[in-house]
């Protein structure tokens, strides 16, 4: 490993940490989309629980990364300033709301929709915390951009919508309104990506490292799914609609996950070292 002065890619967080952002974000997105879709009963319960399971997988992955896993509960100690503590608290709240909402949906009880909405709000807070975790990491210029949290939230919602459409295709369900929402989320993600890319443009190393994942996000994760969703929207064959929408969902999900993994393990160049003045030995130049 080089010790500078030029920046190098951080090695403190690896794929396990990236998995938390990937799975946790996609799971949160799925919970939000499940609430927005207006789904009820068993499908809603399954989607909520699947989203929570993904969040749990992400947290488990990061638990495997921490040096002292038996002290993991210490993570709750500093919600006053640490976004990691806030993320942990949000995860607990999210879990409570999702379990409650899933139970109400599964038993067709009143209050299911309202509790699902609360779960969606908690999911948004959770994924927002994930974005702010990166934003607060001053040592990584590409992460500390003010555009990072918006990008993390936007891509998580798009990934959640992608998952939703994979499931919808598998169960032969889905609406054109849902397709429109999916398309809108893809566009929001594209704008968030463009804004983030502009914000890190001066960081040549990170920009270059993130270019492949960004291109994939733009082309394979946005443009192509939008075309597929557009064709699906005007198609009259249910099988074609669901096949195209499912493929679009898989592309949106996969490219989003790949982008977040790249953000953590490839584009995370540290600050490096820099001195504004060289020492003057003799007369100043």
């Amino acid at each position, binding site marked *: 490993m080089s010790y500078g002065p030029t920046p190098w890619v951080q090695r403190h967080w690896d794929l396990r940490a990236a998995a938390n952002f990937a799975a946790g974000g996609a799971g949160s997105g799925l919970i939000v989309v499940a609430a927005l879709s207006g789904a009820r009963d068993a499908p809603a319960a399954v989607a909520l629980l699947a989203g929570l399971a993904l969040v749990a997988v992400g947290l488990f992955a990061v638990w495997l990364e921490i040096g002292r896993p038996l002290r993991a509960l210490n993570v709750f*100690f500093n919600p006053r300033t640490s976004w*990691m503590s806030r993320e942990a608290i949000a995860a607990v709240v999210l879990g409570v709301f999702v379990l409650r909402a899933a139970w109400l949906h599964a038993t067709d009880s009143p209050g299911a929709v309202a509790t699902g909405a609360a779960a969606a709000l908690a999911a948004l807070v959770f994924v927002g915390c994930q974005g702010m975790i990166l934003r607060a990491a001053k040592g990584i210029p590409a992460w500390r951009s003010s555009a990072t949290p918006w990008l993390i939230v936007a891509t998580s919602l798009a990934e959640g919508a992608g998952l939703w459409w994979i499931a919808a295709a598998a169960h032969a369900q889905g609406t054109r309104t849902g397709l429109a929402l999916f398309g809108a989320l893809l566009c929001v993600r594209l704008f968030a990506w463009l804004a983030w890319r502009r914000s890190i443009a001066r960081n040549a190393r990170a920009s270059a490292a993130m270019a492949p994942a960004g291109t994939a996000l733009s082309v394979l994760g946005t443009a192509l799914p939008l075309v597929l969703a557009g064709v699906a929207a005007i198609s009259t064959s249910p099988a074609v609609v669901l096949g195209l929408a499912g493929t679009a969902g898989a592309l949106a999900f996969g490219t989003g996950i790949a982008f977040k993994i790249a953000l953590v393990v490839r584009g995370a160049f540290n600050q490096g*070292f820099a*001195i504004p003045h060289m020492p*003057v030995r003799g007369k100043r130049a």
Partner: protein
Amino acid sequence: MTRWAMVADLRRCVGCQTCTAACKHANATPPGVQWRRVLDIEIGNFPDVKRAFVPVGCQHCEDPPCMTVCPTKATKKRADGIVTIDYDLCIGCAYCAVACPYQARYKTERATFAYGKAAAHEAKRHDPDRLAVATKCTFCVDRIDAGLAAGQQPGVDPEATPACVNACIAQALTFGDLDDPSSNVSKLLEMNEHFRMHEELRTGPGFYYLWDRSEETGGVPALKRLVEEAMDLA
């Protein structure tokens, strides 16, 4: 109040890494962990090349990002400005390490020794509490506290001064109280042009770099002023 700070005179540092070795000796850090290290920076193209040796490590920031992000409150800042880590609270999440813009933090997952198996001195000083948690330069806080308790002055009395400062062969490193206008570090900063690294990130480092004598207060003019003051006193 007291604000402990370090000053590195870039004109004096010769890059000998004695400070690095002294730090490793004083703190028994494992291979690959250098709480104090010296960068060798070269800029320009032949024949117009400049070179600087830059001691780096924890900057003991006024507003340490490592402390803000720490989810466990393991990282704290003392009233005297020294940033510390409570190894019993730290969960080893390394969030502090990615939040530090000075790459000053380390996490060692398992015990490692210079030649594989622990030598006698390594086995004696191995501290399992420092495994899988964040570690970094402490400004030799134990030496400072013990020295103060014994009535010594950090930065002046070697027993109360960080090991890297004591070891420096060129007196390039100086340690002292920034809030004391008569301290060694305050005088150096007054008489020399200086900067702090990554000032734009507003972390308020407690580590200053001297790069030239001050046009107004340093070098011959300052010496002349001191002589005049002495003459006045006489």
